[in-house]
């Protein structure tokens, strides 16, 4: 090659970036990370529904045993008082309200996230919406957890009452419940700070890069 030929070779280059984003590889990674994140959320929901079901079954069992007059056979000296039945009903409503609001919130969000195509950008948008929703619902979680904790408190109060355990036992139980409530909302906050916010930032940056007209 003469120098003129070298010059032709040099002039033949375009001004495209040296490397582009490997969208197929990126899509795979996005899907695998999303699956991991959704599994984490799924286990949290399972815990919510599981604990709701457990408490509701126990309340139903106590009410049924009381209805059939069998409380004496399980160690109680008396039937449930009117206010105790009312307390158990309030507990039921609190737990139902909690678990149903989680359930319907998720269902609504799932409908919002539905998209026809499985492109990388669509998947990214869906994951951004999903993560934003998960962060938003957890931001006010302390308030959201109050009803089920009140329900649990009432349930414990009634159980201790009918089994004849001294009501003084409530003195450590109430701070214990408050401690559990604070711990739970703190652990959710940690989840937001360490998992969800960085994930959202990563997804948004990626979206920005992919839609950058100069890339």
């Amino acid at each position: 090659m003469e120098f003129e030929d070298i010059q032709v070779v040099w002039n033949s280059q375009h001004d495209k970036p040296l490397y582009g984003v490997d969208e197929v590889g990126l899509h795979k990674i996005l899907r695998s990370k999303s699956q991991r994140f959704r599994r984490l959320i799924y286990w949290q929901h399972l815990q919510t529904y599981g604990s709701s079901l457990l408490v509701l079954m126990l309340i139903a069992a106590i009410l049924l045993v009381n209805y059939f007059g069998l409380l004496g056979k399980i160690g109680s000296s008396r039937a449930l008082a009117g206010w105790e039945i009312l307390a158990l009903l309030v507990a039921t409503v609190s737990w139902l309200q909690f678990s149903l609001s989680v359930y319907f919130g998720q269902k609504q969000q799932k409908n919002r996230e539905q998209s026809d195509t499985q492109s990388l950008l669509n998947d990214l948008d869906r994951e951004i919406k999903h993560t934003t929703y998960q962060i938003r619902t957890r931001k006010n979680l302390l308030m959201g957890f109050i009803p089920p904790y009140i329900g649990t408190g009432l349930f414990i109060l009634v159980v201790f009452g009918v089994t004849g355990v001294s009501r003084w036992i409530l003195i450590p139980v109430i701070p214990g419940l408050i401690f559990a409530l604070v711990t739970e909302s703190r652990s959710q906050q940690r989840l937001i700070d360490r998992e969800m916010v960085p994930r959202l930032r990563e997804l948004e940056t990626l979206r920005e890069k992919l839609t950058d007209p100069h890339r």
Partner: protein
Amino acid sequence: MIHAMKTNEQKRIFEEWLPQHRGLLFKVVRAYAFNPHDQDDLFQEIATQVWNSVPNYRGDSAVTTWIYRVALYSAMGWSRRERRHRENHQAIGADDRPLLQPSSLENPQLDWLYEQISHLDEIDRSLTLLMLDGFSYREIAATMGISQSHVGVKLNRIKKRLTEQSKKEQKHGV
């Protein structure tokens, strides 16, 4: 151009100039950095230097020449720092980012040319880029801060070296 440029103005100029000169920056990046990680790093470094230097542009040379100068000096500085760093730290291996792929199938002759440029020292690399991009000896001398005659001598040597190397490789069927 005034020194106390407002950030908005600096941003507007930067965002106008950078896309316009991307091709030029990619050439410099490719001549000084040889894997995707380093190329990304150097591109960021050059973009940062261009951003910082925008308020110093006085309009006494064409924007392209000025950006070329900033890019070349950034690349030479980056290259020296990287070399020192690599001498002090064992190479862990090239970091080929799994999410990056070559944007298009390259011309093997162009790959060869960049490889030859990479074998030159840092100053000669800059001189070669400027020469191949059609800058005059006077402009190259002003950009690199050396005399025109020195530029002439160096570029003749580089041209000779490139043509001899290409002929040698053609002879051996490469």
